[in-house]
Structures are given as C-alpha cells and as structure tokens.
C-alpha cells in the first residue's frame, strides 16, 4: 500500500515479488510500520555510519606559489588506505578495525571559506594588507578527512517514535546511538596522525588535535547510514538471508544498505549495488524455477 503524495489517496498494488530499497533507514521504517519480516526482533538494530573526524592546517612552503591551475588535484580522492595492520595485530593501537584518509587542498575555485578565518595566521587585518594576505595564503591549506569502519553494536538502533508522525500520520523513526571505544579511538588517532603529517610538512594548525569524543562526527553526519535489517545465516539473528530475501516473507527482498551487517571504512554504495545485483540474479533464478 502506498499514499499518493500529491492527492493523499491510498493505493494498493499486488506483486509477485516486492523489492524494498527506500534507503536503509526508510526501509527500516517501512518494515516496522508494516509489522512484517521481524520475527527475529532485529529490524532497526545494528545501524551504522562511517567514523569521521577531520583535521586541517596551513603549510608556509605553499604560500605565494606561482600561479598555476590545480583543478583536479582535490576531491575524488587523494586517498591513503589503512596501513597499521601490524601495530593493530600487536594490540598497540587500542582500537579495532581501520580507517583511511582523504586529503586535499590546493588552489581550488574560491568559495566562502577561501579567505575566511585568516586571523590565526595574520592576526586580523583589513584593507590592502588583507588583500595581500588573501593572495599569500590562498592554496596553502591542507585538510585531512579520516573515515573509519564502525563495528555494529547493541546501543545503535532505530525504533518507531511513539508520538511523532509525518504529515500522513505515519510514525517516524527515533534513533539511539553510542560509539564504542573502537570508533572513539579511531577518531583520536586520525587527529593525531593528521597533525603529525602537517608538522612534517613544516605546517601549523589553528587548534590542537582533539579527543575522540570531541573529534568524532555525530552518527549520521557522514551519511553512510546502513544496517537495520541485517542479512545472515540464522533466521533468529537476522532479517534476511544472504540474498536480501526476508526470512519471514519469501517474496520480499531488501536491496539497499539496510542488509549490511558491517560498514567498511569506504563508501558503501558499490557494495549495495553488488548485493542488489546478486539479489536480482537470485530472484530471477527462483522465479524461473517457479519458487517465487
């Protein structure tokens, strides 16, 4: 059943197979409001986001460089994959799993931040001096975005809100969230390492690295929300099988991030697409065998 957003009218459609892919948390919301596929009680449980913490600085060596076009040096992405496997094996890091850095800077197309907040470097200027400072510091900033793997835990879940509803009268989700020592440890480590790299470049930063608690981005901010309808091999502990097919409703498939039971440090979209492809192949073979 669905509601026509423009007219408010309710419609019912029948289908041989239903594929739910409303984005992980909206799929969770639809399942919970529909009251299906939840004999395990796991719908809404183990939601995850990417661990995120940023750190930036300024490198005097990059001041006043000759004009040149640096379009393309930033963004998608300069990338450092996880490198501290051996240290982690020894247990010397204090957290499990890893993270990567996306880093950048350069003479990018100016935006609101390009000549903003220079006061920590120039002491606060205006006039011709300010224009000179803007030219001098342009392109001399570097930034590091640490992005890490979150381990699913019992304290991160979504459930139907008992009071808040959307404009159609349908309950919305409310969220519960708690990072473990692993994510907090990653965020702290990201800050420390980024600061060390900046120092090694002869650079400086406006404020010192922060604790994991302070540095870590709030759950949901990195917008890699996944989980909430985990796949698994045990119908008592998971919502779908390894093809995204719901244990309780054989012709209901989930093909978005809701079925993910881990969230690697890199963006989840390609994994979601691969799993959707795999689910589709399985669906077709079941249909050909008249099992759906």
């Amino acid at each position: 059943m669905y509601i026509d957003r423009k007219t408010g009218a309710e419609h019912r459609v029948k289908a041989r197979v239903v594929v739910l892919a409303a984005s992980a948390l909206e799929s969770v919301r639809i399942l919970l409001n529909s009251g299906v596929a939840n004999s395990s009680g796991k719908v809404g449980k183990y939601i995850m986001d990417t661990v995120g913490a940023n750190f930036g600085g300024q490198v005097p060596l990059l001041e006043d460089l000759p004009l040149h076009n640096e379009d393309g040096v930033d963004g998608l992405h300069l990338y450092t994959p996880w490198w501290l496997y051996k240290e982690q094996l020894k247990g010397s890091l204090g957290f499990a799993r890893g993270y990567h850095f996306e880093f950048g800077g350069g003479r990018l197309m100016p935006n609101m931040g390009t000549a903003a907040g220079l006061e920590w470097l120039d002491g606060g200027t205006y006039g011709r001096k300010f224009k000179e400072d803007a030219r001098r510091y342009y392109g001399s900033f570097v930034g590091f975005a640490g992005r890490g793997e979150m381990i699913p835990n019992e304290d991160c879940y979504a459930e139907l809100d008992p009071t808040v509803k959307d404009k159609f009268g349908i309950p919305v989700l409310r969220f519960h969230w708690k990072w473990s020592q692993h994510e907090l440890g990653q965020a702290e480590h990201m800050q420390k390492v980024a600061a060390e790299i900046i120092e090694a470049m002869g650079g400086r930063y406006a404020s010192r690295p922060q604790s994991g608690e302070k540095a870590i981005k709030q759950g949901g901010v990195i917008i890699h929300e996944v989980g909430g309808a985990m796949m698994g091999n045990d119908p008592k502990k998971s919502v779908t099988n390894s093809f995204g097919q719901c244990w309780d409703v054989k012709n209901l498939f989930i093909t978005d991030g809701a079925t993910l039971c881990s969230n690697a440090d890199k963006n989840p979209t390609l994994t979601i697409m691969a799993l959707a492809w795999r689910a589709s192949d399985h669906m077709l073979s079941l249909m050909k065998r008249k099992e759906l």
Partner: protein
Amino acid sequence: MSMDRRTTIKWMLAAATAVPALRALAYTPEPLARDVAPNQAGYGTDPNLVKDWKGGDPWPLTLGVAGRLTTAALCDLIIPADDVSPAASAVGVVDFIDEWISAPYPQQRGDREIILPGLTWIDAEAQKRFGKAFAALEPAQRSAIADDICSAVKAKPEFTAAAKFFAKFRDLTAGGFYTTPMGMKDIGYTGNVPLDHFDGPPPEVLKRVGLS
C-alpha cells in the same frame, strides 16, 4: 553596482556550498534546504533559480538605505580598490551580504544575529567618537574604529563583541568578493577552463617545494 535578485541568490547559494578551509574537507556537503510540508517547521525548498526574481521575493531583503551605506563603507574598508582589483562594493558585495543575511537557512540566520547588531554598533560608535554615521566618516576615522576591532586577540574587553562582528563581516565580504570573476582573478585562481592536457604542477612550483 546593483545586481538582479536571481544573480545574487545563485551567487549566494553557490558560494555557500563549501565551508571554510580549516573546518572543511568533510566531503559531505550539508543540504541547504529541504522539502518541508506546510504543517512542519522549516524553511522549505530552495528558490527556483530559473525565475527572474523581483525584490522582496522569495524572502524580503534586510538592509535599508542606511544599512547599505554602512555595509558598503565597511566592505570597502576591508577590501578597497588596489592595483589588482576593484573595491568590494564595486562588484556587488553589498547586494551579496544583504541577500546572505536575509536568507532563511540556519547558517545565514546565525550570521544575521551577528551582523545586524554589529552594524548598529559601528554606527553608534562612529556617532560617539566623531558625531557622524560610519559611512560619513573620513578614511582615517573609519580606520581608528577598525583598528580597535579587527583582531579578536588584541581587542580590548569592551570590544570583544565588536571584534566578533568584524571577523564575521570580513569573512562574508571576502566570501562575496573572492567568488566573483574579478575576485577569483585577484586571488590567483586560474582554473575552470577547458584543458586538452594536464602537465601537473609547473617546474618552478616543484622546485620551490623540493620535488623537482
């Protein structure tokens, strides 16, 4: 120079798509606005940028004649004309700031709470010290006030709030100015042009950073 509304709104939205360098590089831009149902709190969808906007629509502007004069004087104190580029007001930064502080988004609402009392303060301070509105002061008189508030660290305790305002106003002025074609040229941005090949950084840059 007076801008049409569509140009300043587009400019404001485009300029706002990235956050300052040191807080930036999150690679996850915040949405500026969202679809909001009539019975919900919020600011609704972004304005239709294809439309030819008239004044006061989609949201009313804030600065009146006096406010624009003060804003222009302060913009040009921060970014005056020099050999390289014109003054901030000459490329439409007054329109930009008026649009910015009038927009309904949370960041702009927050900035408005700093900018409007700040403009009131600086005119009152000009009256107190020199018996004229800020825009009517001589350059040396404007600088006398600016010298007291241009640095948050050096500002005396009684100028703490004014220094916070000045820093925000300087950020907005610079944001408006350096996102114009003339501002981009001034700061040394040479990108956003078609390239049939890319050779990487020029040799003199590699030499400077010890990579040649």
